[in-house]
């Protein structure tokens, strides 16, 4: 086996309680790297088409990449994957930092696949290469915080835990998978998949070393790379992502008033500053937090022991909210009460909720309430008005516990919209059931195809013009010109695919020269990687995840496109006023460049052969997806 890999994954059948080791093939590792790349290739064969995402046929994977747990910059990540219950049964994945990923490898495995469904609550304990399924009946119902405390008491402090809270147990589609109490694999509703398998946690302990092809080289590379941080480094190091909240609200990048407002008017500078940069890192007891092996340390802990929003756990210490949470519960809801967002962060982390999903859902509800479509009678007496911090906090808790009106909202906007009789359609901002992260395509038009075409809709971490790494030579031009963007866009998308699959944190990608990634991959694995090869591999991974969706009958071109995201109608105020994103032209040119059908998105035989994916040709010829209407430049 090449360096970087432990060489095996663990397959667990939760129905029968059997576990089985599987050796990884060299070709699979080289062609799909790891993380969601490797997972998509394997699960394409293992999850039958049409499987119920919350049924035993779905397989939940927790996978690292070859650079996870190595000296590479920054190898802290793992990915959760499964068929998503949220996006009409399409491919689902979520990326997560913390400590679990590296420690899964130290415990002996590159990944774990969990199929079937346990008859009673269980947790998986992998202790120095030995796997055991243990009874979790006494743990079921616990919040993530208490759960980690109990498990560490039981197994020792040197374990790492990946778990769900009550939201996942109750199969809420707003649920995520947590690790290290406060790091979330947030998207795709994967917490519900774990809950459907009655798996409370995966616990790992180990001290094995990740094999390195050239230890001296990768150690030297790390030193060299860390000496070349981009300017973004100082923002991230000093503040974390909360360092960009104010500026993004001003620029038009952040959602304001459920994507219907303008930062400069509805949430001006003095309000945005209250939930941004200095305001966050000067909170009581602020202390920086780093994921495993990370030199940036963008996270942080704060103390909030008193006041209306006193924290309940860890003796009043909680993780500071990051940009997405600050926007989805701040700018998006016109809420400048920072203490309330710190509290919401605690609630979401403890109950296992994705903050993007819940913040987006509450935005929809507030707008329905403010426009008279809902009243206090519907919302359990809570006044769901813009900026009402107390009500927002209370509703978040209700969602996490499926209590009262919270039960209506616990599966996100699309389900709530259905349950409420399809009210306020214009306010229901989601793409195919996935709430939209806090980056506006009207500010970065290249985000529109990222949100609309990638296998996981509405995902800002899928590459494109929002994520430009240092050292990459690309032609950008005027961002509001919608033609001839395909080459640059594909380049940016494919590089991110490899970054994610390799187990790297995207903030390393954004802070250090991009050429460092193939260099590090080569040093760790011993295989040749260069920028061109990396792009081809990225395209292969992108295509593999897309093929999973095609086989499910899902054509991304038929996804709903919320008017507010693309400026239909355009805003009349703020820094993205007057903008209407011509996403159809962007999408069409991207599909043409990839060699995919421009109405069905089916890859041509030739494009598959180019990527060495001949095995898909037959399946793709049988794909039966609804064709999108033809698009022209005048659309």
């Amino acid at each position, binding site marked *: 086996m090449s360096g970087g890999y432990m060489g095996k994954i663990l397959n667990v059948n939760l129905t029968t309680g059997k576990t089985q080791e599987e050796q990884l093939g060299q070709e699979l590792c080289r062609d799909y790297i790891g993380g969601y790349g490797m997972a998509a290739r394997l699960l394409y064969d293992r999850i039958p088409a049409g499987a119920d995402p919350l049924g035993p046929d779905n397989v939940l994977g927790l996978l690292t990449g070859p650079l996870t747990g190595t000296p590479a910059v920054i190898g802290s990540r793992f990915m959760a994957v499964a068929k998503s219950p949220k996006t009409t049964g399409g491919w689902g994945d979520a990326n997560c930092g913390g400590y679990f990923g590296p420690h899964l490898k130290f415990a002996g495995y590159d990944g774990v696949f969990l199929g079937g469904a346990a008859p009673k609550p269980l947790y998986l304990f992998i202790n120095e290469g030995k796997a055991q399924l243990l009874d979790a009946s006494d743990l079921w119902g616990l919040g993530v915080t208490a759960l980690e405390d109990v498990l560490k008491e039981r197994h020792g402090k040197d374990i790492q835990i990946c778990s769900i809270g009550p939201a996942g147990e109750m199969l809420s589609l707003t649920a995520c998978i947590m690790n290290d109490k406060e790091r979330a694999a947030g998207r795709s509703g994967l917490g519900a998949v774990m809950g459907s398998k009655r798996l409370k946690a995966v616990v790992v302990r180990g001290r094995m070393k990740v094999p390195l092809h050239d230890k001296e080289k990768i150690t030297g590379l790390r030193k060299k790379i860390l000496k070349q941080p981009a300017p*973004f480094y100082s*923002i991230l190091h000093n503040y974390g*992502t909360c360092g960009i909240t104010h*500026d993004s609200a001003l*620029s038009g990048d952040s959602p304001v008033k459920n994507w219907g407002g303008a930062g400069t008017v509805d949430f001006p500078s003095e309000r945005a500053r209250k939930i941004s940069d200095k305001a966050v890192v000067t909170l009581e007891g602020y202390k920086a937090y780093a994921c495993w092996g990370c030199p940036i340390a963008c996270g942080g802990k704060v103390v909030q022991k008193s006041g209306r929003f006193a924290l309940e756990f860890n003796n009043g210490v909680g993780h500071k909210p990051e*940009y997405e949470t600050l926007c989805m519960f701040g700018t998006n809801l016109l809420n400048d009460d920072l203490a309330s967002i710190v509290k919401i962060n605690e609630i979401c982390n403890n109950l296992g909720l994705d903050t993007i999903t819940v913040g987006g859902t509450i935005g929809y509800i507030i707008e329905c309430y403010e426009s008279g479509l809902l009243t206090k009678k519907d919302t359990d007496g809570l006044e769901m008005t813009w900026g009402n911090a107390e009500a927002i906090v209370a509703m978040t808790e209700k969602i996490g516990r499926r209590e009262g009106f919270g039960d209506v909202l616990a599966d996100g906007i699309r389900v709530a919209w259905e349950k409420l009789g399809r009210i306020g359609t214009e306010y229901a901002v989601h793409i195919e059931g996935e709430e939209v992260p*806090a980056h506006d395509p009207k500010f970065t038009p290249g985000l529109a195809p990222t949100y609309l075409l990638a296998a996981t809709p509405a995902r800002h971490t899928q590459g494109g013009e929002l994520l430009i790494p240092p050292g990459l030579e690309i032609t950008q031009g005027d961002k509001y010109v919608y033609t001839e963007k395909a080459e640059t866009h594909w380049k940016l998308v494919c590089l991110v695919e490899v970054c994610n699959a390799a187990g790297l944190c995207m903030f390393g990608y954004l802070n250090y020269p991009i050429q460092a990634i193939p260099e590090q991959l080569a040093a760790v694995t011993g295989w040749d990687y260069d920028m061109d090869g990396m792009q081809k591999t990225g395209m292969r991974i992108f295509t593999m995840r897309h093929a999973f969706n095609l086989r499910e009958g899902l054509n991304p071109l038929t996804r709903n496109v919320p008017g507010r995201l693309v400026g239909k109608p355009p805003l009349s105020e703020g*820094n993205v006023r007057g903008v209407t994103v011509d996403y159809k032209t962007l999408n069409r040119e991207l599909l043409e460049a990839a060699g995919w059908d421009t109405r069905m998105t089916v890859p041509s035989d030739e494009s598959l052969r180019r990527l060495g994916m001949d095995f898909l040709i037959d399946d793709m010829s049988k794909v039966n997806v609804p064709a999108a209407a033809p698009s022209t430049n005048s659309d």
Partner: protein
Amino acid sequence: MRLKLACGHRKLWLQFPEDIPVNVAQALQSIKDTYPEVYERWCDSKGRLRSSLAVFVNSEHIRYRKGMDTELSDGDEVYVIPIIAGG
């Protein structure tokens, strides 16, 4: 004429003669010698604004004015932000 050039919490005050008009490009160029480290972060070797940055005058994107040719008045704030993704 007094202008404010800002990025995050960092603020630079620039002084220009009253009678000569100054635009955004000139305001940025004026810090080349006085604050070379800031200038290099904002402009490339040809003096062009880096594409990873956006510029605002009194909170309005310069796209809605005359871009880098936007003329500035006494007391105006030129605000520069890096475009980056939050996690």
